């Protein structure tokens, strides 16, 4: 079962490597991983998408929580949460189709959240953000219009809905 785990991590040398190392050493899969500093520069938020049954996820959370740099960790899967992933994709419009450009424009109209970042000769670089399923559907929708020849996905970022926050378990340096 797909799981989303959120982690607050102290920004220390090697902290991210220790999280990745723990997953590797204990045989946990990482489907996607995204990490960046939060509004508190001393703290990074890490979102991990993994798979496993309840027992595996319980161990992932507990073993991760033993890492000294980990401030807090939670499995968001079961709680109401929002997910988003950034997609950058390069599309080559099919030159053999007379209405390729028109098809592309129509596609963009159906996906108002998509943005064209760059326009080249027969090539468009598009930015799109959405949850995993939306990104997959967006990519599927591009297939008949042209050839996707490069893409970068950020991995899923997630937050719980409403006022609930993943709070560090103690005072954070600098806060």
């Amino acid at each position, binding site marked *: 079962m797909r799981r989303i785990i959120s982690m*607050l991590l*102290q920004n220390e*040398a*090697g902290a991210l*490597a*220790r999280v990745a*190392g723990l997953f590797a*050493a204990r045989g946990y899969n990482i489907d996607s991983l995204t990490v960046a500093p939060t509004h508190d520069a001393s703290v990074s938020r890490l979102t991990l998408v993994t798979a496993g049954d309840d*027992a595996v996820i*319980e*161990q992932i959370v*507990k*073993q991760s*929580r*033993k890492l*000294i*740099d*980990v*401030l*807090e960790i939670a499995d968001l899967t079961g709680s109401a949460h929002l997910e988003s992933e950034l997609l950058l994709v390069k599309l080559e419009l099919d030159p053999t189709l007379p209405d390729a450009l028109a098809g592309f424009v129509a596609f963009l109209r159906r996906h108002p959240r998509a943005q064209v970042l760059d326009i080249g000769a027969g090539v468009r670089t598009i930015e799109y953000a959405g949850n995993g399923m939306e990104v997959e559907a967006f990519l599927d929708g591009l297939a008949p219009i042209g050839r996707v020849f490069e893409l970068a996905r950020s991995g899923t970022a997630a937050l719980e809905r409403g006022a609930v926050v993943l709070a*560090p*378990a*103690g*005072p*954070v*340096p600098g806060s």
Partner: protein
Amino acid sequence: MTGADIVVQVLVDEGVDVIFGYSGGAILPVFDAVFRYNREHPRDGGGEPLPLIVPANEQGAGFMAQGYARASGKVGVALVTSGPGATNTVTPVRDAMADSIPIVVICGQVPTAAIGTDAFQEAPISSIMGSCAKHVFLVTDAAKLEATLRSAFEIARSGRPGPVVVDIPKDVQNAQLGFSGGGALPIPGYRARLRAIDASALDDAQCDAFFDALARSRRPLVYAGGGVIAGGATAALRAFAQAFGLPVTSTLMGLGAADTTDALSLQMLGMHGTAFANYATLDCDFLFALGSRFDDRVAGVPAQFAPHSKFIAQIDVDPAEINKVKRADWHHLGHLARALERLHAFGLARGFAPLREGTYDDWHAHVADLKRTYAMNYDRDAALIQPYAVIEEINRHTRGRAIISTGVGQHQMWAAQYFDFREPRLWLTSGSMGTMGFGLPAAIGAQFARRDRMVIDIDGDASIRMNLGELETVTTYGLPIKIVVLNNSGDGMVRQWQKLFFKGRFCASDKSLHRKDFVKAAQADGFEWARRLDRREDLARVVAEFIAFDGAAFLEVAIDPDAGVYPMIGPGMAYSEMITGDHIPSRHAPAAREVSAAEMF
């Protein structure tokens, strides 16, 4: 002060009274600071306040630090140089992690500007150790050196103890810094979790639930692990078990938690546990796991472990050990000693008096019968020297009060089975990692922690080879350590498995063609008393002389090469399939089932 001076001052402030270390280019400033500190602070009587004990190999330093920590409960310290010095300590660091032993390893590192340039004696220690240690610090900001070192000690000894590595670039050691004499890193997440554990207390409802179950039980069993010793809960456990008449079995790491000579002690359980402990585990209806983790040498088949237990209770300081292998019906996360004292007082106040009411009388009789019927035994009439007899003979002198260290393999299991352990911190063995070569350096470290105790390394011919260089360390420092090599000309435990599971194909485990003369080796390293025992009739006399010798002594014993370790619960087997060998009775016919060699480990 320089960074190096700060390292030394923090060690002193943390109560360190011995360092195990090997020098090298990237750690020279700290070595120099140790030298200067010792010269400037002579102890009354002229001794050094911070003696620096030099091993033959940095792995020895790591295991000496561990031996010191295991025997004393204090943090052991190893001090090594960059690159190979540091990588040689990877094994003792991982070993300390696996057995929850508090050590701090301080490594020199190439100067900050040279990191990542493939410099001479450079290795990515924070990456390598990050996978092995409880935590690793690479000190890139010299201003944080002092706080980092203090935090390293705090992390090593708090919560579930473990090894912490501090990697210090040479320029940080040479930096001119202020010394504040206090302060640590914030580590807010870790501290918050520690506070939660410290504040964790059993409420009345939890205590009631525990005693409700215990009162329903007719066959309760305590399963004590290394956490009881690490948590300083030995006295609390003994008082608790005695007050309510609970038999105690322990893991390899938990030996000494209960007095193994006690009537209600069942000694060790598991793959090579006593038959009576394993039968009691099969028969119990209430299992109380204390600082133990159902690992594969105890619960090889978790679903069939303690199959008749209707209730499993568990206390541990590490949340990750709760429900990891076996679901507990009741658990408490917190300090073992405090939890046991609380339960003890609660049980008394509740009027729980199974001893007075005879609730467990049948169980006690059953346990006594198991201990009598399935007692440890071997061929007492054999012509060749039996290893069990050697341990029994030494035990007649030491009576469960000496510090015993071991290598890994058959001799380790024989020592666990046939020695008495009347106190905690007498039994030093590489339990989880199973590191051959542990015994000799661990004995050296232990002797520095406990000058008052006899320290005996029970070793095997293969295990002692792994760190044989440390023989010289024993005599260099004038340590009165006793070393026993049970020589069966090979890797005995490997041979036992090859015999049982690989149809007797003794690949690379037979060393009968090896020509090493262990006695000459010991003599070459300065052992005045070094002898080989190969006649059965000399056993009692030679052992008596060996133990009585005032100083380091080395005894090689030519043992029966076919002696096996029994009982044995084969890998992948349940307790009901235990093999007891030819000299211990069994409750059932030997298992006929074959387990594929590919499935076992």
